């Protein structure tokens, strides 16, 4: 009887999605905690370059293997999926190696540092039918999901112009210039790190722009990279918008995305916590009356099974697991989606190089 039970239990464990987490920094810590709460997930191993971190993990997380290099992880562990939370330049080689082993990948944003690499990974993963997701968490925020619903239903008519902004207090004093965050080659700087979220939100809600112009990259505290970004985004359809990002704004306690969208039938103002929407006509099916309406996160949130940093962080990872378990499920933030953001980032860098410098 005990043997049968044991077999049953190990079979259960075999049915679990076996995961490795690469990079135990801020995001790696959070992802571990959330994924470990998932009943169908078993975290098998972690990779980090810090011996201190690994020795703590060995002591307190029994049964979890530790590695100092990701190729050791791939060599020794049989995994279903990896979560990549390293500095951005490492995302590409890790994802390539994962693909060779037929391993599903969740990569932190900004995915890779070059659109060609992003495109290549998208093709490989699509061809192999492996789940591929990037951590653009706003796509899982209940408010922005609602905004998308309003836009799809043309509650504000045809979109004409927009403004996408993001502010945070990430870099608020002079930088020594020796971390990956202060190097564009390594995927640092406000454009890769922060503006990428604001650009992804534009692509998610409105679509991919066709032209970038009027870009400016401003240093405030960083030695080698930009701390603030402006850009104008143009569409062949006639839509236009602006991007305004500053990661050195101490007046924001938490990273904040703001979006303003003007359409032929009204206007939407939204951030992670609420929507103000003005409509020319009423939409009873959306409980919107003519004129100004306010919708708060408390009106639209969907509870998550386990909460650590915000519903969206749990939702994105649970979605990743769901996609692994269910072939039919379409991923809501694929490598290809994220490559779209990389294209825009590159276009902004190029536009600034060509037209923004004196």
């Amino acid at each position: 009887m005990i043997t049968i039970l044991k077999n049953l239990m190990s079979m259960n464990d075999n049915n679990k999605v076996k995961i490795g987490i690469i990079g135990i920094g801020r995001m790696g810590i959070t992802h571990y905690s959330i994924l470990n709460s998932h009943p169908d997930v078993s975290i098998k191993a972690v990779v980090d370059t810090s011996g201190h971190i690994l020795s703590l993990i060995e002591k307190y997380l029994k049964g979890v293997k530790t590695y100092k290099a990701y190729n050791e992880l791939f060599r020794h562990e049989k995994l279903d999926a990896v979560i990549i939370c390293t500095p951005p330049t490492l995302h590409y080689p890790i994802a390539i190696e994962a693909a060779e082993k037929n391993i599903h990948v969740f990569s932190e944003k900004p995915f890779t540092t070059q659109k060609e690499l992003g495109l290549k990974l998208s093709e490989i993963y699509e061809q192999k039918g492996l789940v591929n997701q990037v951590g653009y968490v706003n796509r899982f925020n209940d408010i922005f999901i609602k905004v998308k619903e309003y836009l799809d239903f043309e509650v504000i008519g045809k979109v004409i112009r927009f403004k996408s902004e993001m502010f945070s207090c990430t870099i608020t004093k002079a930088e020594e210039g020796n971390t990956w965050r202060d190097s564009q080659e390594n995927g640092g700087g406000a454009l890769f790190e922060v503006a990428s979220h604001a650009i992804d939100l534009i692509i998610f809600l409105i679509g991919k722009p066709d032209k970038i112009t009027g870009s400016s990259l401003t240093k405030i505290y960083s030695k080698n990279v930009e701390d603030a970004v402006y850009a104008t985004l143009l569409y062949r359809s006639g839509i236009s918008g602006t991007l305004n990002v500053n990661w050195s704004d101490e007046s924001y306690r938490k990273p904040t995305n703001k979006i303003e969208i003007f359409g032929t039938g009204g206007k939407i103002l939204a951030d992670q916590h609420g929507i103000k929407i003005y409509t020319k006509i009423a939409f009873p099916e959306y409980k919107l009356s003519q004129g100004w309406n306010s919708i708060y996160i408390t009106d639209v949130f969907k509870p998550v099974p386990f909460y650590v940093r915000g519903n969206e962080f749990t939702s994105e990872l649970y979605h990743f697991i769901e996609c692994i378990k269910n072939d039919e499920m379409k991923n809501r933030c694929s490598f290809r989606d994220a490559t779209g953001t990389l294209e825009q980032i590159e276009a902004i860098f190029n536009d600034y190089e060509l037209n923004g410098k004196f």
Partner: protein
Amino acid sequence: MESIDKIVFGDNQFFGINHMSQEKAQQLAEQFFDLSNIINVYQIAYDFGIRAVMLNSNDRAKSICDHFKNNKTKYPDLTWYPSIPYPHKYANLISEKGIIPTINEILFKDNSALGIIGMLANGGTAVFDKDAIKLMKMLVDVEMRMFKGLNVKVIFLQNLITDLILGYEVKEIFEGYCNYIKSKYKVLPGLITQNMPRLLEKLKEWQIEEVVVCSSFNEIGYLMSPDIESYINAAAQNDPSKYQLMAMSTLASGAIKARDAYAFINAQPIQSVVFGASSLKNIQETMSLINLKKL
């Protein structure tokens, strides 16, 4: 276990924290930029009978603590419920420098007064190698410095940290924290969480008792994971001699009218409510509406 205060006055309103609206949060931040405006609100609350205050150890909390330390005779019976740490302070540093350098910086930079030099002499970073509990104790001491001299009743671990560790399911950290708070500070350990049913279940499993558990509790289930039913069941089955329950976010950042919110809360078998308010009218109204069941 010593009984906690039924009504505790919170601090979110002072620090530009509002889960529903960033605009509202900004307005509050502007209003309370001036410390004297904060002190005035505390005075109003005290005059209305508030005797317990929850305060997060953020950058501005120190000056609030200093005020109350310097005016102790004015508030002889006021008790304190600190919550530690202020997680955003750590969050940016961690993504910038990594975990270990962050801990290093927080413990060893500008903290010579802590007497840590002795520890450094004893092999500084060796501490980090294997002993997270020792590390946690040192961090608790750093965060608790500003509250020294105040009459502390419960020391809460802030929810981001509690829930992060809960996800890892590491018994030793919770056990270490609770024991340290009891033995060193001689007060009740508290845990703030957005996953109350799961936390209670784990604490029971690990036999960690005599803990105060503070969680969001409101009739729309906002910030209550996995769902409102699990909260109501967990509270109904709870043994308050082992775990005293405290409700926060009772108004769900203003989504629920105070009268409805407290009609719901008063019907729950919980021991305490923490609420924040910044006007005489709201403090008065809330205090008249909170009427927890006698258990």
